[in-house]
């Protein structure tokens, strides 16, 4: 546990001392602020569509997710690829700690950063509560959804970084993994609605999953899916580290 904490601390220092992290943080806050403002503006019009501001905020369109893919890729690309490039992977992997601890510390560091992107957005529901009475459940479920979606994206980003030799390749690969996941939902639409493929793709669809979370449905199958995808990606990440040392 002490080793995990020491590595996590080192990871957080590395992330927060990187200019990329602050650029990502500032850009995310700017975009989310503009997005939230526009949602309020649209909903204040007489012919406003049906919906609550926070439900729309937690993923109303593809545009809500693509920037997240970019931000997560920007943060996770350095986790292993940069250690390989600078040579610091060698003292790291020859330290007397298991590879699982190293992968876990890197995952937690990047995921904590991802969560810290969303933390300031808690101001939006606070603003709404100061003027109205939105339901707490859907807002909490929405945040649970983005946290789980972010965990899986972060794990896929770590896997990409362990597979790639350079940060830029890691970022492209990570974006590719995330985009493939997003497109799973689109793929379901082109298949016969009752086919097995369509049912599987719908279950894996980010859009359908977030549609449930943002209206307050925290389906345990969605939780299990995201946790399983995260664990699978982290196990493959660990395997990639081992294979590279043996090949």
């Amino acid at each position, binding site marked *: 546990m*002490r*080793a995990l904490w020491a*590595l996590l601390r080192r990871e957080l220092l590395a992330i927060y001392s990187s200019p990329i992290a602050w650029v990502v943080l500032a850009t995310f806050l700017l975009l989310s602020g503009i997005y939230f403002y526009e949602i309020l503006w649209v909903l204040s019009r007489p012919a406003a569509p049906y919906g609550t501001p926070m439900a729309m905020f937690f993923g109303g369109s593809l545009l809500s997710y693509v920037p997240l893919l970019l931000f997560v890729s920007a943060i996770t690309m350095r986790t292993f690829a940069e250690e390989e490039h*600078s040579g610091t992977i060698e003292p790291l992997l020859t330290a007397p700690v298991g590879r699982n601890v190293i992968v876990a510390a890197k995952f937690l560091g990047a995921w904590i950063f991802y969560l810290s992107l969303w933390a300031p957005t808690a101001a939006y529901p606070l603003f709404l509560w100061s003027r109205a009475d939105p339901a707490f459940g859907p807002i909490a479920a929405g945040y649970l959804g983005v946290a789980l979606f972010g965990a899986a994206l972060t794990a896929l980003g770590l896997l990409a970084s362990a597979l790639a030799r350079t940060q830029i390749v890691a970022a492209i690969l990570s974006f590719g993994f995330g985009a493939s996941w997003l497109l799973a939902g689109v793929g379901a639409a082109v298949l016969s609605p009752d086919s097995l493929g369509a049912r599987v793709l719908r279950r894996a669809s980010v859009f359908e999953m977030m549609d449930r979370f943002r209206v307050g449905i925290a389906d345990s199958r969605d939780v299990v899916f995201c946790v399983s995808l995260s664990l699978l990606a982290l196990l493959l990440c660990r395997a990639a580290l081992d294979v590279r*040392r043996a090949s």
Partner: protein
Amino acid sequence: MIEARALSRVFGDAVALDGASFRAEPGAVTGFLGPNGAGKTTTLRLLSTFLVPTSGTAVVAGFDVRERPLEVRRRVGYLCENAPLPVELRAGEYLRVRAALKGLDRAGARRAVGEGLERLALADVERRLIGELSRGYRQRVALADALLGDPPVLLLDEPTNSLDPEQVGAVRELLRELATTRTVFVSTHLLGEAERLCGALVVVAGGRVVATGSPGELAGTAGGSLELAFLRLTGGVAA
């Protein structure tokens, strides 16, 4: 103790190490001497468990590098080639992280880091970012890391690289002292370093171990000149 048994490592078509067998024991510093590209760094990476052997194996501090890599890592202090360090951390902070990774408790870590900073004359740069340190200071920080936790086996890749003459002397003195009770295995391509520091030598060339013995014994094969013996063994000049 280190015992390599027909240790080999292949990268694609390139044979970096070809059936190397040798031993290193406490009592004197063992030098792993060879020209550039001879397979020295690959051997240290195999002994430290960073790489997995293609064939053969090695026993380090009583544990097989293939079967019990974590046990090996618990007993080895390893200085990597070129001392790669995370530039965003402060020197003292980095050593405290490494002490925690090596299983030292808070009090033990504080004591070990303090000793390391004093031994390697690093106290004045403890709070400085590693990225701001000179190569010599970085080398000393990496060496202090290798010594943390007082491991019974030290694997040091070119330990006096980038150090000034005063520090080279101090580090050699320290390694000689440590070698009285620990296995100290030092890779070098410098004959002067091997002659002044090591009590035993393993000479490697083209991925193969070509000779073992004390510097005096090896020099004795070429009229008392270690340089001539080395050049003959490694194919530098015709015998």
